[in-house]
């Protein structure tokens, strides 16, 4: 064992621990799940169905996408959970790091119900997410119509900004940069404009606290996903989603099987249950508003910003293979620009 192996083994031992359910094939499956509405939805809807239909008990580890990657990388092939749930950026990172088992679509009974392109060799789409501008209709009877307007009055002094730590934050900032002449890989115009308006911006916060800050009136406009808007609306918060002239941003949330999982059979059963028609139908309903990937699910009256899954092709999408290598630099730059 050389010094590098020793350090990596030690880090793995320290970071991994012995997560229950991750190593024993005992009628359970452990999935990573996003904290908040995702965890709530899967605990109340998917877990009982999986137990009833497949006899598998669902255990959950509440982790954001970046934390899942950090844990799995630390564990070096002994992931503390059986399945990942990820957004496009962390998904690319995980693929590059070799954190997934090869995905076999033939093991899913419901695979045929998903449109082409929803399953690949790495994993399967489980929900669509749409990002736009959330605003308080009582404070702004006239919503903004473009990303550019966020940096002008009356919006900028009530704006809640988040950085590049999340998928929705990163893609929103890219769209703001594009509105000022930037591109998917050039966010310099965003930083230039941010410098001009920084003292006016109401909130520069982390993604986890933004819904609370919006609810408490600390800010009245922010970029976020339709799911957050739906959840807050269901709680009685004055909030609406404005669609920028360039269109809503769309991306898929995906499931993947962790490399080294000892519960691969149960992991497929879990994923199969999650993409089944009844589950997708229930996850789409209030208060979760998860856009379905199953073509048998009707989107009529779902409160989602699209009538069919095909419409997602016309929405704004991003290439994370280009974004990922630049993201660390952007995060560091954002820290320096916004710090007092």
């Amino acid at each position, binding site marked *: 064992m050389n010094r590098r192996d020793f*350090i990596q083994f030690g880090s793995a031992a320290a970071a991994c621990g012995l997560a229950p359910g991750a190593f024993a094939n005992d009628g359970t499956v452990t999935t990573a799940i996003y904290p908040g509405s995702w965890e709530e939805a899967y605990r109340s809807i998917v877990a009982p169905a999986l137990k009833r239909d497949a006899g598998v008990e669902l255990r959950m580890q509440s982790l954001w996408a970046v934390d899942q990657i950090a844990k799995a990388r630390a564990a070096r092939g002994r992931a503390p959970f059986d399945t990942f749930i990820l957004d496009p950026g962390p998904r690319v990172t995980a693929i590059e790091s070799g954190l997934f088992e090869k995905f076999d679509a033939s093991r899913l009974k419901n695979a045929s119900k998903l449109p082409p392109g929803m399953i690949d060799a790495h994993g399967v789409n489980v929900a669509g997410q749409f990002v736009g501008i959330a605003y308080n209709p009582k404070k702004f009877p006239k919503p903004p119509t473009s990303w550019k307007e966020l940096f002008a009055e009356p919006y900028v002094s009530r704006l809640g900004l*988040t950085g590049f730590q999340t998928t929705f934050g990163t893609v929103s900032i890219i769209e703001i940069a594009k509105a000022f002449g930037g591109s998917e890989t050039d966010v310099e115009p965003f930083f230039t404009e941010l410098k001009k308006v920084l003292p006016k911006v109401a909130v520069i*916060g*982390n993604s986890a*606290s933004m819904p609370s800050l919006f609810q408490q*009136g600390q800010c009245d406009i922010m970029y976020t996903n339709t799911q957050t808007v739906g959840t807050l609306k269901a709680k009685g918060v004055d909030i609406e989603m404005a669609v920028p002239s360039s269109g809503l941003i769309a991306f898929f949330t995906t499931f993947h099987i962790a490399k080294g999982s000892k519960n691969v059979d149960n992991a497929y059963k879990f994923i199969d249950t999650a993409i089944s028609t009844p589950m997708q139908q229930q996850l789409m309903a209030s208060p979760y508003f998860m856009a379905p990937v199953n073509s048998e699910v009707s989107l009529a009256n779902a409160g989602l910003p699209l009538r069919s899954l095909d419409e997602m092709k016309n929405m704004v999408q991003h290439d994370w293979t280009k974004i990922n290598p630049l993201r660390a630099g952007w995060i560091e730059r954002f820290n320096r620009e916004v710090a007092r």
Partner: protein
Amino acid sequence: MRGLAMRAGEGALVLPLFLTFMLLFAAPLVLLLGVSLHNDPELEQWGLLTWKKFVQDGFYWQATLDTLRLGATTVVAAVLLGYPLALTYLSLGERGQRILLFIIIMPLLLSVVVRTFAWIVILSHEGVVNQTLLALGLTAAPLRLLQTELGLVISLTQIELPMLLLPLIAALSRLDRNLFDASSILGASRWRTLFKVILPLSLPGLIAGCTLVFASSTTAFISQSVIGGNRLVYLPLLIWQQTSVVYHWPMAAVISIVLLCTVLACLYVINLMGRKSMRYLHV
């Protein structure tokens, strides 16, 4: 010879504890140091480049100073608020003391996350504080309390206050009440008794409390990121970013070591000052 053999036997009794300590405490620190001595996130190249980047970058130094200042400010605020409260505890009867102790301990039974988010409700634009100030006509527009160091210190003071109060009350409770009577019989005013008798004798508890508050507030990642937001950059936020978003473990390890060492150095200074004060006060 027999004495040596006995000492060896005693050493063998301590060995399991020593080995456990080494495994669970020292080994992770050695690993942390090892990870910090890499130039690349893949941990393939040994070197001091990451340390060099940290040392040569003023942004990191500023974040370090801000973190230590936050700890110091919170300690001062907690002492100013906590010491009178501890003295109040001392002056109460047994029932009153039980009630006050329960009030002090109660926040510890709640998650720090819940307490932090409660401060959002209190300090926000439409929160209790701003609504009260507006209703009383003391301000024309809501004050900005969230995402400021003032708001963060206010919330951290409340969150960390039990950490200061518990050792302080324990120290004060051990004092012989006859000393206060002796002090006043000898002509000392109440203030003189406080500064010449009570304060010096309560210093061990006060130092222990300050130590806990300082260590806890400098590393309070949740409160710092939720109440402070991204305008206030402290070392715990940078560690999280480097670990979980950027995946640059060497830099995360460097920042962790800097945080650990600077906090330990400050705690050493607090203890040293405390010990020197005690010596001076007893002269």
